[in-house]
């Protein structure tokens, strides 16, 4: 069953068309990244999924049901605008939201201490929220979102303001939850973050889906015939190989362009026989490149 299904969703604010005919299918047990530049309509889409704002037209289903309110207890939502009660202590905030999300009694206190431990805030438990640093605040916000072990996690820009260590912590938890069969949807405009965790991505620009696919598929489709190598020895012969069309030196690396449908294994063989190969990589276009290519093109079409 699909965790989330959007069908021809439209939303405009006055003159501005925020989301334009968007359809997307998020299968359960996957990490789905909603990517796009600022103002692309990511937050609006997530808010519509959460039924905080209503779409003008179109249909949204969660767990196969069109009422989000019924599913609310099964969803954890972290909005883009972070906020918690500043005067309450860390433990109390966590317990309050846990209770609002249906936890009670022993289970509630167990989950509170488990999540405090998981996001590394146990030492800060008796402190007031206003005393936390921004990164800690963010982690607490995540714990609040996930405390009841929701089947669907919707995170709006979850890594904004986090240092690399905490970013990795959050990614690890997201992957762990995915492995438990839960679904995670998150939005970001930082592409390399998505690259490492996403199973699938939806690329939005100006409210319109530009790309919606499995990440592995996208990358294999767009795999170029460029190989990046680091070699020791005389490399002059490479240019003369029949499958090589061009060669470009990039520091101590070489970028070798091959003819279409060339077998990279053949290149490896030729290289190994003549020089020492320290590194060999078939270049896969980064999401960043795909993003710039598609969005840049889209913009060009518009103007």
């Amino acid at each position, binding site marked *: 069953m699909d965790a989330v299904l959007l069908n021809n969703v439209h939303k405009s604010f006055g003159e501005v068309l925020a989301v334009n005919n968007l359809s997307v299918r998020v299968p359960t047990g996957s990490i789905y990244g909603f990517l796009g530049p600022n103002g692309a309509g990511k937050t609006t889409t997530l808010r519509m999924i959460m039924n905080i704002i209503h779409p003008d037209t179109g249909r949204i289903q969660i767990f196969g049901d069109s009422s989000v309110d019924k599913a609310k207890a099964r969803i954890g939502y972290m909005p883009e605008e972070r906020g*918690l009660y500043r005067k309450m202590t860390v433990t109390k905030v966590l317990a309050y939201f846990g209770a609002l999300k249906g936890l009670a009694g022993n289970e509630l206190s167990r989950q509170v201490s488990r999540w405090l431990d998981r996001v590394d805030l146990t030492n800060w438990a008796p402190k007031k929220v206003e005393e936390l640093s921004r990164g800690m605040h963010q982690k607490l916000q995540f714990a609040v979102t996930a405390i009841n072990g929701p089947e669907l996690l919707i995170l709006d820009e979850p890594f904004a303001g986090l240092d690399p260590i905490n970013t990795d912590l959050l990614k690890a938890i997201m992957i762990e939850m995915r492995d438990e069969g839960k679904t995670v949807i998150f939005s970001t405009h930082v592409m390399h973050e998505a690259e490492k965790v996403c199973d699938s991505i939806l690329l939005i620009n100006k409210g319109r889906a530009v790309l919606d696919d499995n990440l592995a598929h996208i990358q294999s489709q767009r795999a170029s015939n460029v190989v990046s190598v680091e070699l020791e020895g005389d490399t002059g012969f490479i240019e003369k190989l029949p499958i090589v069309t061009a060669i470009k030196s990039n520091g101590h690396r070489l970028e070798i362009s091959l003819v279409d449908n060339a077998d990279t294994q053949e290149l490896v063989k030729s290289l190994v026989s003549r020089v020492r190969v320290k590194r060999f990589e078939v270049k896969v276009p980064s999401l960043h490149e795909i993003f710039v290519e598609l969005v840049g093109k889209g913009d060009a079409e518009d103007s």
Partner: protein
Amino acid sequence: MQKILRVAQREYMETVKTKTFILGILMVPFIIGAIIFFTGRMARGKTGPQPTVKVAVADLSNALADEVKESFDSYNKDNPQRQINVNMLETQEDSDKADNQGRNKLRQGQVDVYVVLDNEILEVEGSGKIRLYTYKPKASNIDILWTIEDRFRKAVVNHRYKTQKIPEEFLTKLSEIRRVPVERLEMGSSDDKDRVQSDIDRALKMMVPFFFMYLIFMGIVGTGQHMISSVIEEKTSRVIEVLLSAVSPFQLMAGKILGLGGIGLTVVGLWAVAACITARWQGLDIDVTTEFVLYFVIYYILGFLLITSLLTAVGSICNTIKETQGMMMPIMMVFIIPLLAWFKVVRDPNGLMSRVFSFLPPLTPMVMILRLSSGSDILKVEIFASIVLLALTVLAAMWAAAKVFRTGILMYGKRLGLREIWLCLRQS
């Protein structure tokens, strides 16, 4: 329902802990206690020593010196805490000079009061006057002017008695004849429980309806403030979206209203208990029937629901406390009307004004409590009708507030205008 209770519980616990709440709850009984205490003390005349009041007198009749001295000596003997020092100016030779002297002394602040006794003052039914001059009078001296005036009048009257040759025995007799003691009694439930009433008792009796109304006013308006700040806090700290992912806007609003309703009842309950204790301590007995308490609670809750619904809506469409103040003004003005009109309502609880006010929903709770505690019979039908009307208004207000709340709460940066509010209401 569980979620509503959860929200209510947090709202209650977090509000109870705030400093404004604790101060607020302590200040009001403290102030009321202090007022009762000091009124009591003042009425018993126990004040500390005050500076001597200096009076210059130009006696143009040149005949009253003895009587004036006698009159003020007897006053000074009885009032050691506040003496009056009378200085007779020399008027025998040049009365104009004396007058100038008196005026200058007053202007220069050497004396507090300058008094001129006309020559003709000795004649009965003459045109003579006692003229009392003050120059930039101090507020603390205003009350003593009555005493000074009275003492001079006494001096003149005594002199007139003498010139009219009225025998002293007759005067003594007359004052004895004129003395008729009055005792004000309040009948108790049995004959041995009758109580003597003092003047303060009477004044306080008059104040009881006002007190109950004020209790409602403070409860409603005070907790309304908490509501506003609670909504604004959730909005500015952006916690609202997280909340809305777990509860519906209606649950959130209902929980808030419930929690602050609890706050309101706590506050009013504590104040009422404090008032009862003070009343006992001061020996006043205010009888409150169970029926009245029941009505009080009903009107209080309905009034509270009405204003908090309005204020949640106001809070949700504003971004800062400052913005709310402009919108609070008209709402507060309405609630001040009964505070201004209370005397008229208490005096005439079944008059036209009282009745009309009873059926204007925002005024209903305060006005009805005034009328009910004023001691006259109010038609049961009227009570019932006012409650029904108020309850219907509350439902309408809550419905409208929920609509505005739902939209307003997620609007950051700009405040909703009247047109947008209207659109919210029309949206189903």
